[in-house]
């Protein structure tokens, strides 16, 4: 075979202009029924879609900060891919939140024109990148819990959440695998990399509990078959993390969960100090040119 460029041999014939490169993709969301299930409280569904969407958006923002700064070129691409996957999930979830709310807010409005107290992400995802090991530790905890969640959420009574979850499972399996691979490499690497990986886990572990703490919105929607009670995820997440830590010669951190503020945490809009700075950077352009179209 001879081709002018190698990719011709890989590409199938297609005239779908959405895909800049590659072929055989299809938009899994295009055929999803977007009607809102009648059994569901709209305010609850709006809040839940925001919770999941904000987790993905904020972690995407953090992960994107690595662009051009990763330890190796190939890892730079891998982290950017993960950030893009998460941003894709955030867009679908925030779009769903906006249409459930019915107040005319689209994904951009929700991403750029809400203040810190209106964001419902868990505090884990807003933590600074730190060194590479700390970033990997954060991704390991998040992706493990999110994969367990999405595997269950793909059976949600809300067809849009079910479709978003089903689509996200494949991406999150890759994210979890990537983080686990690096956890083992660093943990079972040099003395210095072992020390840093353990320190990264120690730094992120206090935020793990929040991933299993059910918010009343989640409990009500879980009752209706729409959401997943996150406390159900703990056993699976613990088993995966224990397996990774054992392979990596690392120890499970003995740390207390991060305290709530009067029982309120990320899901209630109570965030840690880095969150405000993150939003200031993320929202700056949109806020200074509020009527701009891009």
């Amino acid at each position, binding site marked *: 075979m001879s081709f002018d460029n190698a990719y011709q041999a890989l590409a199938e014939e297609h005239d779908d202009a959405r895909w800049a490169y590659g072929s055989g993709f299809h938009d899994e969301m295009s055929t999803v029924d977007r009607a809102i299930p009648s059994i569901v409280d709209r305010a609850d569904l709006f809040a839940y879609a925001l919770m999941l969407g904000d987790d993905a958006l904020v972690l995407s923002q953090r992960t994107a900060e690595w662009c051009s700064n990763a330890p190796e*070129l190939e890892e730079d*691409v891998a982290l950017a*891919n993960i950030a893009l996957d998460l941003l894709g999930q955030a867009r679908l979830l925030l779009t769903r939140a906006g249409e459930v709310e019915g107040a005319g807010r689209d994904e951009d409005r929700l991403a750029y024109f809400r203040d810190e107290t209106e964001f419902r992400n868990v505090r884990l995802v807003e933590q600074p990148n730190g060194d590479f090991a700390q970033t990997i530790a954060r991704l390991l905890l998040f992706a493990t819990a999110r994969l367990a969640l999405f595997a269950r959420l793909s059976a949600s009574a809300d067809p849009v959440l079910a479709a978003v979850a089903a689509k996200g499972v494949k991406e999150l399996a890759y994210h979890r695998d990537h983080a686990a*691979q690096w956890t083992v490499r660093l943990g079972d690497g040099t003395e210095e990399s072992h020390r840093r990986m353990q320190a990264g886990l120690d730094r992120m572990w206090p935020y793990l509990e929040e991933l299993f703490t059910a918010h009343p919105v989640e409990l009500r929607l879980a009752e209706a078959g729409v959401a997943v009670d996150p406390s159900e995820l703990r056993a699976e997440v613990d088993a995966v993390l224990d397996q990774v830590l054992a392979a990596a010669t690392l120890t499970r951190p003995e740390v207390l969960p991060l305290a709530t503020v009067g029982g309120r945490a990320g899901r209630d809009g109570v965030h840690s100090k880095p969150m405000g700075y993150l939003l200031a950077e993320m929202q700056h352009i949109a806020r200074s040119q509020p009527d701009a179209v891009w």
Partner: protein
Amino acid sequence: MAEVRSSWPLWEVFVRGRRGLNHVHVGSLHAPDAEMAVRNARDLYTRRNEGVSIWVVPAESITASSPDEKDPFFAPAGDKVYRHPTFYDIPDGVPHL
């Protein structure tokens, strides 16, 4: 930097498309071992489209024909038509020939 790179050797990447018949060389990358080379190849060369097959080979494992010997190496076949297996009709039912 050279020292760091030495632990991330060069790999050649071959990819077969979902309906492609054979693996095609698409480029190269650096990775510490074969497992990560496959993962990096997925990110860099396939955008993780399902159903493709990836081969990675350490660049140092590939032996190439020498450009200097191109003429003596390949020329004997060029002018001898009887060396080409073309003197028969291909039955209709034979695909991919």
